[in-house]
């Protein structure tokens, strides 16, 4: 049984599909959403310890989704996906309570490490 559940949120369907499959091959329980509204809907149906959240999405932005997650699911840890490091969005995200951020294209081992740390923190809260 997986140690933690992950919700992957990104508007690029092929990215979500390939990454989800890679995480499942590694024994991670993964669900996915292609936009912010869908992500918040999924979180109302199921508990997730970790959310991997793209910062730049059409419609509800990643930062707005983060704000809402922190308000309604404070125990869930959010790792932001950003195109570049110390951007306004990345810095603002950390200020809003994101656990950490990853820069695309991601290194899957680095992602697994951060997810594990985030999940530990989620269980401790």
């Amino acid at each position, binding site marked *: 049984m997986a140690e933690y559940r992950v919700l992957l949120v990104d508007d690029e369907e092929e990215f979500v599909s390939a990454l989800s499959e890679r995480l499942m*091959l590694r024994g991670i329980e993964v669900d996915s959403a292609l936009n912010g509204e869908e992500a918040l809907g999924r979180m109302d149906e199921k508990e997730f310890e970790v959310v991997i959240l793209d910062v730049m999405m059409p419609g509800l932005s990643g930062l707005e989704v983060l704000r809402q997650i922190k308000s309604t699911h404070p125990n869930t840890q959010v790792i932001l996906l950003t195109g570049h490091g110390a951007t306004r969005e990345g810095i603002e995200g950390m200020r809003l309570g994101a656990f950490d951020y990853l820069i*695309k294209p991601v290194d899957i081992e680095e992602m697994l490490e951060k997810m594990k740390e985030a999940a530990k923190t989620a269980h401790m809260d």
Partner: protein
Amino acid sequence: MQTKVEELSRVKEIGFMGKVTASLSHEIKNTLAIINESVGLMGDLLRQDVPENWPQYSRLTELTASIEEQVQRSANIIKRLNQFAHSMDKSLADLDLNETVRQTVVLAQRFASLRRVNLETELDSQPLHLLSDPFRLLYVMFGLIERAINCSPKEGEVRVKTERSGKKFQVTVTDQGTFGPDEIRALVSASVSAEAEQGESDLALLAQTTEALGGTIGAEQETGGLSKVILSFPATMPTI
């Protein structure tokens, strides 16, 4: 002399270029992310489901590794493009001259490699804070380094040094070319002519931009017959 409206227009034009470049670089990053995960998945499935003694196993493993390397290489190039694009965000910012030189040298590296010129830096150990226009400063530094690369013989060396010298910050570009300091000074102070042949007014144009930024371009003879072009700015503390 540029009017304020012309200056504002120029700032807006540059800002537009930076905004669109940054946006495009973000889109390319998303594409790279898809390629990265897809090829990563190919590698995962190969390792999981394909026996190692399958004839094409090792070739496919090599190919997926090569694609992953090129994705990373592209990501690094896009990072540089994005940093360059963001230099156009503001017309005034608190800069560290060392960081600007680092960024310029990275941008100029390919030009140096194409001419087989070695590009070296010697940066001051302390940050050199300057209030300036990031894009125009990059433009001036790149112009001076590019000039030095083009003047240098193949297998030659261009050295870029930063230092605080009294009440000034200096960026010195040394090359092994044949232009002496008198010739360089003449080119710097020459009148800019729209009819001049391509490249003739380059140093004069860079000098004009440098003057607009509050700096100067000078030239000196280095020991061993090398030429130094020196970009100087007053070392005043930033107030933003």
